[in-house]
């Protein structure tokens, strides 16, 4: 029986199989360049997921997630280039740095909601953007920090290095998949249900006994973690960190990706990010004003699919399964004597 749940599972398995096959499949049907585009899409999808956790699940629209992405990046870059750390400690430093700054700014930001919240998140990211640009000895300012390939590292006897393109791809895939799995678990847990309740009606949520402030802060730190992991991966991927990734237009892009893909759905950010990065890669080589297409697509989706592409897909699937159910009920009735 093809229920929506079965269809979703089949699609997930097919999608997973495709991602695993990418390093061999894509060079054959396209070229090697697209393997690294797909790796980049995965990283940015994780970043968009951090916007989604806040906006789609607890109802806070952050225009400042680039700040935590930037801290993840700089944690790695400063760790490797300045402190001489090896791979895992540098990775850990990036994640801890982004969690810490998310906690500190979240303590202030989640006191506010709606546009006040959006504004304060922008303000925080601007403050740190200008700070990063100005403390040149630490951050490299506008030029950023380039660092040599991270030292080789080993996981359980297997040694690997980001200089091996396949290794790099699978490391990114595994890390992003793990983060999405964690998010999936959180969404279905009592904690995740409490998030959604707060998104739906925060006054009622408080009246049933939920500590709205504390739960918003938890979600904010979790989102900071997701953005931080994405930033740390991106630093290893590009072998550099730069303040320009902390600028708020980076945050804004992730908001568009998450909303167009479908806020409040686990895979919405993946769909939105993929769509826009593919558009960018294809169109920008031919036409410098590719932002027009991005804008047009975003506007069309918001008008015709207010719940995003994944939301639209889910709704169609539900309608289809309802119709086939009705049909099977009718056939049953007809066969009755």
């Amino acid at each position: 029986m093809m229920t929506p749940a079965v269809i979703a599972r089949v699609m997930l398995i097919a999608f997973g199989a495709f991602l695993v096959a990418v390093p061999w499949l894509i060079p054959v049907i396209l070229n090697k360049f697209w393997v690294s585009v797909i790796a980049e899409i995965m990283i940015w999808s994780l970043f968009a997921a951090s916007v989604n956790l806040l906006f789609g699940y607890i109802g806070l629209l952050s225009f400042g997630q680039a700040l935590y992405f930037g801290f993840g990046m700089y944690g790695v870059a400063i760790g490797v280039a300045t402190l001489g750390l090896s791979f895992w400690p540098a990775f850990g430093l990036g994640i801890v740095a982004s969690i810490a700054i998310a906690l500190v700014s979240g303590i202030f930001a989640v006191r506010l909601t709606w546009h006040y919240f959006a504004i304060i998140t922008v303000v925080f990211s601007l403050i740190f953007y200008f700070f990063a640009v100005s403390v040149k000895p630490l951050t490299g300012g506008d030029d950023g920090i380039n660092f040599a390939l991270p030292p080789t590292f080993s996981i359980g006897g297997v040694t690997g290095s980001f200089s091996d393109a396949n290794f790099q791809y699978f490391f990114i895939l595994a890390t992003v998949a793990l983060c999405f799995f964690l998010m999936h678990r959180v969404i279905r847990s009592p904690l995740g249900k409490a998030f959604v309740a707060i998104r739906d009606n925060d006054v009622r949520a408080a009246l049933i006994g939920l500590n709205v402030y504390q739960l918003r802060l938890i979600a904010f730190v979790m989102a900071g973690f997701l953005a931080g992991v994405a930033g740390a991966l991106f630093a290893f991927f590009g072998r550099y960190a730069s303040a320009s990734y902390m600028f708020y237009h980076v945050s804004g892009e992730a908001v568009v990706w998450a909303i167009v893909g479908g806020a409040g759905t686990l895979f919405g950010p993946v769909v939105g990010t993929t769509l826009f990065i593919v558009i960018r890669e294809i169109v920008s080589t031919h036409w410098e004003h590719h932002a027009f297409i991005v804008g047009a697509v975003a506007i069309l989706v918001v008008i015709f699919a207010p719940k995003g592409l994944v939301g639209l897909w889910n709704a169609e699937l539900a309608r289809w399964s309802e119709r086939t159910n009705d049909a099977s009920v009718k056939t049953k009735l007809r066969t009755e004597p």
Partner: protein
Amino acid sequence: MTEAVLRTENLTKRFGGLTAVDNLSLNLPGRRLHAIIGPNGAGKTTFFNLVSGLLAADSGRVFFQGRDITGLKPHEVSRLGIKRTMQIKSVFPQLSVAENLWVTRHATKRVLHPFRAASSDLETRERVEHTLEQIGLTALAQRPAGTLSYGDVALLEIGMAVISEPRLLLLDEPTCGMSPAETERAVAKIKQLARTIDIVIIEHDMSVVFEIADDITVMAQGGILASGNPDEISGDERVREAYLGRPEDEDYVEEAIHA
């Protein structure tokens, strides 16, 4: 007389120049069903907002079972066991009816598990099913609450209050917007609840008030106009005067008296 379940001392709330609750000192003894009535704008809902922590009082204190709860946050008040329904019905519109009950039941737990699947909690699931039966919404369990009729939302709100096992229940016009059949169901439910839970109900429907209340407090302009049992209230001249501006309520009082 048993210890007061809810007591206020000189409670005052102003909105600009308007004093919505004016030096209100109330003493509601436990194990009785209290009704608060009064004309529009008397300050009844504001009183509930002060007790439940949605608004901060300008002065005065609130005691719940002898404990000073003045200035506590809404979730802190809720966790002491004081639950309320809203005059303007308030549920989680995008969650299903069952999920509304589920999340309400879980909200009072100290720790919300971040990774275990919510659906694996069988104890809560049984409670939800039981409550759905009690309020007669089993057939609508999977519908998003935002798509329910007004009366069904009101029933759901009562269900949410019930499933959280309150010690004190504040109901703000629970039957408003219900059909006669729904009102009957809700009134029966409230009467049954009142056997085990302390209840304060704000209600405009006088037939409901005189049917279920043990004690009635009449509010007007933020203060207490009169209080007593239903017989005393229906015979009170000042109460009848306060309602003179509202003929429809006058009729209810008449009906209730002659019933």
